[in-house]
């Protein structure tokens, strides 16, 4: 009796399972929207006769919990409907969009455009034949996109010279550094503003500062440096090697072969450098325990004299906190950026600029009218389109309730535009309010570039313009000149399974072993830890990674020189 019941159930299960496992077949609708009308609005967009409806799944955007962001999106959608006759229907994801997109794929329920997806997910769509090829449009309706991509255009093509995607955010601001060593301005002035050109100079400067002020106003002990280890904001030894002339943590020889920092003399010197701080007792003993939040607490309490990392970290945890809490904070109590390099190093390669972006947009096979969609994406590549996307709705349309009128830029009926003078002033004097921005922005980023525009002045980020007129920003740029390099060709996008696993294993290997070398108490300990690090990396498969990087680099360099 029992047996029969169980076998009966199994049969039912099998039947049901096979039904569920079959996918639905999708009928492709062949009706097209009439997109030409000959009527252009002030943005240069040809307003279609019938409303163009675009369904978008945005895997890179976040849901909008703030009132400002919500209002912003509403306004943008309305604006597009009114001025462009385009209806955007956007579905957002929270947290990790990849999971949501995978589910959409599995249930065959994805819309016309999927944006904000990673390279892997994009490749999946392409390999399953679910993405629309964009190459045929690049010389016609998509030519603004090709123009904007400029010399890195070939790097976006696959091995058959086909284009399948656009980056949601490409380009780079070539003068703006990403990473820098930072030191406090008033303290640096107090020790006589010494020149900082080599790692030793920085070491000495920090020690001088500590000698002068060994404790904070509250009596707590101060340290020269500290680290933090959270996903996303690593204190990254690969980055530190930049001061010794390595790029992205690799030594690249003329032939284009990559050697990982842990197998180079420079990497060893870099580790010894930090070991010096440790032996002096000026390295925070919790350096390898801190999460970013704990590091931030220590830093805001003035317990850490120097920091090597992203340029805005000392802003976010430093003077922005101090000024917010005490409006009378002296102007010089803030951090400035310095760069130094080892004598043998070619340059201090701190900021590798990758122009290729990391999230992408595709047009899927569900799109009924791929040309119209291509047109829309192309619109975002034009100057006015980018301005609208990044700066938001123009002409001071009163939207926010902050008392400001939401004016960042103005455009007239002929299409001439300029940034509003009051906004420009606020940017220069650093009184620009970030919250205000959200009230009139919210368009999905299907294709944007953060490189500076052809006029050499404007760019999509409001606060990255006109720094010559901002004292601190120009100081930063001056000091960090020469530390920026183009790393687009180094970017490894096509990864085999082997390489992906090796990457993760390598990361595990250095996170678990580098700290021991930095915190070695004697020469022997250091050597032992260094060897352990190298052994761990070898077991993890670092040679696979090096090989993949080298080959990729050589191919990319060829592509660009063609």
């Amino acid at each position, binding site marked *: 009796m029992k047996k029969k019941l169980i076998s009966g159930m199994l049969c039912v299960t099998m039947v049901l399972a096979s039904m569920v496992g079959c996918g639905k077949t999708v009928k492709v609708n062949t009706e097209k929207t009439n997109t030409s009308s000959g009527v252009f609005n002030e943005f240069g967009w040809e307003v279609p006769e019938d409303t163009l409806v675009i369904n978008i799944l945005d895997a890179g955007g*976040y849901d909008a919990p703030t009132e400002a962001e919500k209002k912003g999106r509403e306004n943008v959608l309305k604006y597009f409907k009114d001025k462009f006759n385009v209806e955007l229907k956007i579905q957002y994801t929270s947290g990790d969009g990849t999971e949501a997109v995978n589910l959409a794929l599995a249930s065959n329920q994805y819309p016309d455009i999927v944006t904000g997806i990673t390279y892997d997910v994009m490749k999946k769509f392409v390999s399953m034949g679910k993405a629309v090829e964009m190459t045929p449009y690049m010389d016609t309706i998509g030519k603004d996109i090709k123009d904007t991509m400029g010399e890195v255009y070939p790097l976006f093509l696959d091995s058959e010279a086909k284009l399948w995607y656009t980056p949601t955010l490409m380009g780079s601001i070539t003068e703006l550094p990403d990473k820098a060593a930072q030191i406090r301005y008033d303290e640096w002035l107090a020790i006589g503003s010494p020149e900082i050109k080599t790692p030793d100079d920085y070491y000495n400067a920090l020690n001088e500062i500590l000698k002068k002020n060994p404790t904070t106003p509250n009596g707590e002990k101060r340290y020269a440096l500290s680290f933090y280890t959270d996903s*996303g904001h690593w204190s990254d030894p690969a980055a530190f090697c930049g001061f010794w002339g390595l790029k992205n943590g690799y030594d690249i020889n003329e032939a284009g072969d990559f050697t990982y920092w842990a197998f180079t003399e420079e990497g060893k010197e870099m580790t010894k450098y930090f070991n010096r701080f440790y032996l002096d007792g000026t390295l925070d003993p919790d350096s390898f325990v801190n999460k970013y939040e704990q590091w931030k607490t220590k830093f805001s309490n003035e317990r850490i004299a120097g920091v090597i990392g*992203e340029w*805005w970290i000392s802003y976010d945890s430093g003077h922005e906190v101090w000024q917010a*809490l005490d409006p009378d904070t002296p102007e010089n109590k803030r951090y400035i950026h310095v760069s130094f390099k080892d004598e043998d190093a070619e340059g201090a390669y701190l900021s590798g600029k990758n122009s290729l972006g990391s999230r992408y947009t595709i047009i899927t096979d569900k799109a009924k009218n791929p040309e119209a969609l291509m047109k829309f994406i192309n619109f975002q590549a034009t100057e006015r389109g980018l301005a609208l996307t990044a700066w938001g709705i123009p002409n001071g349309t009163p939207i926010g309730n902050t008392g400001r009128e939401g004016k960042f830029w103005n455009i007239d009926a002929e299409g001439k535009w300029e940034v509003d003078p009051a906004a420009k002033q606020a940017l220069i004097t650093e009184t620009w309010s*970030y919250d205000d921005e959200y009230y009139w922005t919210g368009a999905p980023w299907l294709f944007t570039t953060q490189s500076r525009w052809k006029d050499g002045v404007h760019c999509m980020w409001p606060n990255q313009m006109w720094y010559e007129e901002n004292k601190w920003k120009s100081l930063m740029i001056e000091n960090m000149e020469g530390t920026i390099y183009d790393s687009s060709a180094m970017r490894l996008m096509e990864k085999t399974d082997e390489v992906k696993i090796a990457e993760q294993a390598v990361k595990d290997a250095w996170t678990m072993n580098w700290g021991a070398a930095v915190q070695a108490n004697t020469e022997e300990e250091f050597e032992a830890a260094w060897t352990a690090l190298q052994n761990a990396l070898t077991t993890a498969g670092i040679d696979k990674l090096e090989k993949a990087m080298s080959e990729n680099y050589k191919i990319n360099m060829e592509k660009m020189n063609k």
Partner: protein
Amino acid sequence: MSRPFYIKQTRAGKFFDILNAVFMFCFLIVVIYPFINVLAISFNNGQDAVKGGIYLWPRKFTLDNYEYILKGTTLIRGTIVSVLRTVIGTVTGVLCSALLGYIVSCKHFAGRKFMRIIFIITMYFGGGLIPTYLLMTKLGLVNTLTVYWLPSLFSAYYMLLTASYIQNIPDALFEAARVDGASELRIFAQLVIPLSVPMLACIAIYIGVGQWNSWFDVNLYSKNGRWDNLQIILYRMLNQASAMADMTDSTMLSEKMRTIQPLTIRSAITVVAVTPIVIIYPFFQKYFVSGMTLGAVKQ
């Protein structure tokens, strides 16, 4: 002292009592302090909280954090959805688990081992996220309220707990009712439920809190946002901060990092999520703190 009269009081007993009381007091501190700390931080200014050093009360009092998370009309709907799903989910879940527990503890029921086993198998073997999602889609349960309680109606875990409790109820009681012509459902409703109140109260708490706190299924199945609950709204606010962790572009990261202070927001969110539970819990607690119940057979 409410100790039953028949317990003798010895010296060893008194010593134990003192030790116990002291230990409980220390435990109380260890348990309450973190919560007071969270409360204090939630009322503190974000930038200031970053500097640390806040223990029992806020240093720079502000209601900004609560304003940030409680603003907006979707929160009201979210709270309604939360309450709805908690109430429906708890009532159905408790009743169904109890029913199942009763069925598998009827000594004369030949199928009880079979039923137990098919449920216990489900505790360990599952298809995973994607097949479950596809099933819900096929059943039309996406974007509904039903998806929050129907798939979790019966649970092997609660079945075992209720069964173990019901087994302690003397079978003679049920037999008597059966002889009197009562149907099984009637026995369940009028005998089993009243006699299992402590266990049911306990399960109600577990299921209720589970329903109240869940956000993962909302994230998965509430695509158009109509059936968002309180937790997912709070979770999204919190996760803006960690979503940024994947950003590789430095400039974009700096734009976003400035306006969010996760520490105080997170504390405020914890307080908002926990407070309703703290308020409701005592109502359930009285069902099993009152001490030993009278023997059922006497009735």
